[in-house]
């Protein structure tokens, strides 16, 4: 028997006051995270409540633009118009200075088959940031300094 579950009539309420300073700084091409003074965990993007301590984190700290890939996956999506299978890489990036991993995409010209965990990356800003989550367009690869070191393999 046909039936449907209407999704369009819901009205979700979210309070984003804790995100406002973060969005402001994005406009200036700066990254900030929110630190909990109870356990020193830095949340990036900022989080409303620290789960471990059950208090509101209240200290803003600087987050670097560089970071590492903490994990990645490649989604194989079927284009609804053409029907062909496209490969879309998704990464979780761990910024230096933060204790969280956030979802992002790599520079589309990079061959993602070379992605590995721990790969160093840097944020690439858009021309005119507006204070939204798309202000970081994608992440560029940067040179990995350890590749030329000679390490014994056991």
């Amino acid at each position: 028997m046909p039936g449907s579950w209407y999704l369009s009539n819901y009205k979700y309420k979210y309070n984003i006051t804790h995100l406002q300073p973060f969005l402001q700084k994005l406009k200036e091409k700066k990254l900030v995270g929110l630190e909990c003074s109870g356990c020193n965990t830095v949340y990036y993007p900022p989080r409303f409540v620290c789960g471990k301590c059950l208090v509101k984190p209240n200290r803003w700290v600087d987050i670097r633009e560089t970071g590492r890939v903490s994990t990645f996956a490649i989604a194989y999506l079927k284009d609804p118009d053409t029907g062909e299978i496209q490969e879309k890489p998704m990464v979780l990036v761990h910024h230096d200075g933060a204790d969280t991993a956030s979802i992002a995409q790599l520079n589309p010209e990079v061959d993602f088959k070379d992605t590995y965990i721990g790969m160093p990356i840097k944020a690439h800003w858009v021309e005119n940031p507006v204070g939204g989550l798309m202000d970081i367009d994608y992440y560029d690869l940067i040179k990995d300094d350890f590749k030329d070191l000679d390490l014994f393999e056991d």
Partner: protein
Amino acid sequence: MKRMDKVGIVGFNQVKLYSDANYGRYEMIFETVRGALDSAGLKKNDITTAISCTNDYYDGRTISNCYTVEVGGGYMVDESKVEMDGAHAVLYGLMRILSGNHKLALVWGGSMPSCFPYHAARLYETDPTWERPVAYVNDITAAGFQMRAYQEKYGVSTKDIAKIAAKNRKNASKNPLTLQEAQNANITVNDVLDSEIYADPVTELMVAQPCDGVAALLLAPEKQALKITDNPVWITGVGYNQETYYLGDRDLTKSTSMELAGKMAFDAAGIKDSKKEIDLAELFEAYAHEEVIFSEALGLVDMGEGTSLNSEIDGDMPINPSGGAIGGNPPCATGIIRIIEAVKQLRGEADGYQVKGAKKAITSGQIGMCAQNNIVYVLEGGN
């Protein structure tokens, strides 16, 4: 019959109810839970188990309770989630304490029906094959069936039932935490009768309005409860029961599940005559006539005489001195709020609507069309 070990309520908190709160649910849950811990002087690491209560359909998302674990104090804690009334979540918390595995249980529940029309979501509880194609079936029409059946059997007029709604709204005006729209100190029976008809004979002011709200409770076993607070309130009995589903199979003039749940709770608490031993009742009445039917089922008044009971705050058997669910019905939190109000009465903290000398109270929670599943608690005060 074997008696139940008693479990202490050592802390509680509830937010003021709004019909359209201007803050989001994570803030509300955090405020409630943090407030409950602070009121008991406990910290997050003292919590050994956390139970939450929300409903996917009322919140508009699958697994609505999965993202609320952190704000609800459940981070890295042995926790679970119930999806019925808040009072059933308290039941699960109670079971975890009685098993001996846990020493402090945090129970919270609530939702925000301002995000979605609540009564329309109730349509999804109906049988998809037989009842749902009849598009107007929801909890209000089912309540209409029950009210008319009760009236016809006992010859009770709509006016008598409207008196209950008026009494509850007057009581709500003395309780600062209830819904603003529900508080009306000068309401008359005619106001209730003249309000908009939802499903004849149920009118607008007889319905408990769904609103935004969250409530939380802390439970502990006897030994720990006495150390945490000087004034614990004991849960000495609990009973829960579910009757059959289709409205046509049930006798709508009485609530079989409430009778059986009440019997189970009274046996566990050692109560032989509820009329004499109970000082007040906080019942979850989603509609004014349900209060009448429930009080008969619990033995507080004889069958058919429900409307002749003096249930005012200073009456023979005070029912819902806080205004009841008609004072504001946040789905999934109302059952917990009934317990909180009873706790306040037993501790003597219900300023403005205190029942004198309250020592034993009963509270109820319900879920389902026409209260298909009922749960009853017996609470005993202080020392």
